[in-house]
């Protein structure tokens, strides 16, 4: 066991449509240490989302090795992938993907239900998480009655439910205005730091680059060698 929470090497992925094969990821390798906040950036079509899907055990790579939390996951079956996702990974989606008919509390509780936590315990832990994202007072509110920023914080609480080791966030600020986006990222960063979670964020939003511990640029399906330029807001980009 070492300090790398995610270790990928030689990852390849191509999409096949009829006779045409489109390579999306080529020989991608990366390491993310425990507790690190890594940003994946790059233009549209560079393979960011595909890489996040593979890191999130939603897609399997065509070849290459991927170890997450000391478990080799690249050859997992879909059932094994699902079990690994619910036990080890938390997701924050671009459009939040909250369950519209449920309250904020129930949206968090559902992640506990998936791993079989009993109702009382899941309620207690969900309320604690909502408190940590500053939404304890909105626990009983239907998510459709919450602002976009509040919804994103519910999504953060849900991603942290069940104490996953890794949080994967897909464009977490894309549906938010500048202020709400920065607030949501602050909450994500602080929570993950205090809970020692490893975070991988896919984003286009250069305003939040300063919050990354490290930034990797993807270009044409490969990790670009050059460093990401500093942004006017940058304070601590690696």
């Amino acid at each position, binding site marked *: 066991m070492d300090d790398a929470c995610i270790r990928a090497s030689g990852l390849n992925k191509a999409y096949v449509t009829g006779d045409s094969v489109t390579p999306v990821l080529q020989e991608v390798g990366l390491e993310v240490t425990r507790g690190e906040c890594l940003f994946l950036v790059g233009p549209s079509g560079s393979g960011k*989302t595909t890489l*996040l*899907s593979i890191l*999130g055990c*939603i*897609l399997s790579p065509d070849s290459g090795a991927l170890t997450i939390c000391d478990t080799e996951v690249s050859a997992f079956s879909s*059932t094994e992938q*699902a*079990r*690994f*996702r*619910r*036990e080890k*990974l938390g*997701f924050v*989606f*671009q*459009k939040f*993907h909250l*369950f*519209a*008919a*449920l309250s904020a509390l*129930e949206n968090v*509780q*559902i*992640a506990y*239900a*998936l*791993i079989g936590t009993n109702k009382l315990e899941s309620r207690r832990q969900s309320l604690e998480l909502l408190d940590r994202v500053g939404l304890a007072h909105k626990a009983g509110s239907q998510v459709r009655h919450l602002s976009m920023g509040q919804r994103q914080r519910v999504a953060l609480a*849900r991603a942290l439910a069940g104490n996953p080791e890794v949080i994967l966030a*897909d*464009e977490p600020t*894309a549906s938010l205005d500048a202020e709400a986006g920065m607030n949501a990222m602050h909450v994500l960063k602080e929570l993950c730091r205090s809970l020692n979670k490893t975070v991988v964020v896919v984003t286009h939003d250069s305003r939040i680059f300063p919050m990354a511990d490290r930034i990797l640029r993807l270009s044409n399906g490969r990790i670009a060698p050059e460093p990401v330029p500093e942004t006017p807001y940058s304070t601590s980009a690696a």
Partner: protein
Amino acid sequence: MLSFALKTLASDRGKFFTGVAGVVFALVLMNIQGGLYLGLMSKASLLVDHCDADLWVGQKRVDNVDLARDIPEIWMNRIRALPDIDRVEAYIVGKGTATLKGGRLEDVWIVGSHPRSMLGTAWGFISGSPESLKRPDAVSFDEVDLKKLENPRVGEWLEVNGHRARLVAQTKGITGFITMPYLFTTLETARRLSDMRPGFCSFFLVRAVPGCDKERLAAQVRRRLPNAAVFTPPEFARISQDYWMERTGIGISFGASTCLGLLVGLMMVGQSLYALALDHLAEFATLKAMGADDSQVCRVILIQSLTMAGIGALVGVLIVLAVGKLWYSPLAPLEIRPSLLLGSTLVIAVIGLAASLLPYLRIRRIDPAVVLQG
């Protein structure tokens, strides 16, 4: 998951109520069709069901209580002495043609009981009594046959097979499978009105001594009367019902319309669940992205379908019970039995499970990666 399943279901009231309506429709149709069928079938064994005999003895090839064949009364002597027999009486179920006041002819059943016990006689008297039938030429008639018999009144005379019969009693609710009027009377009057040969009758009605084994007694009677058919009342009722069911195909007719109702119910529930699933594909994809496996997704769909089935069944049962209370038609009696309600509710549960199959298969195909595609 329960909360997610139920709240998602309740969030689209249109689809929810369509599904519930489908279940209600299927359950009510099943019970009304089944109740009418049972009611109709019970009419085929009306005389058996309302008679207090312990055994029925008839001609060897008899297969219906209404369509009896003559047997010699002298055969009774062979079984009278059996220790388990309390008494044996002749019983006549004959056919006649009544000439009505206006000159029209109407076929009638003539049912004659032994005057000592009047076993197997009419019931549901609204005028007169079994005692009044013991008078010479006295017969009863039923309210349901008033129109067929040209609205006779108690005290009036009727001609049956050229013999005079006096209407002395009126009953309510006695009508058989083929709806010919029943005229109940005594053995002797029935023999005369139906032109039955002297020394013959249609059946022997056997009353056993209390506490005896009826099956054993039936076996003893069969040994003594090898040329007769011996039935317990449930056996004879079933044989009489089977006779009409096999000859009329009525079971197929009722069964087909019930199946059609079930199919419509299945379609409505299935369509509602499927449309609901399509509306919530993104949410199911999110669940799968979060790690829900097929069994957890299946549980959501099953909770939804069984909830629809359960609520629909509850509403349906209440409607059926209300209809059962309000329904009165001797010509088409409705027999809602607890076993019918229970059976139809189980069928509804199966419909619920079947209806969830299609949405489940659709949701199984969802790729959770779609939630990461913006």
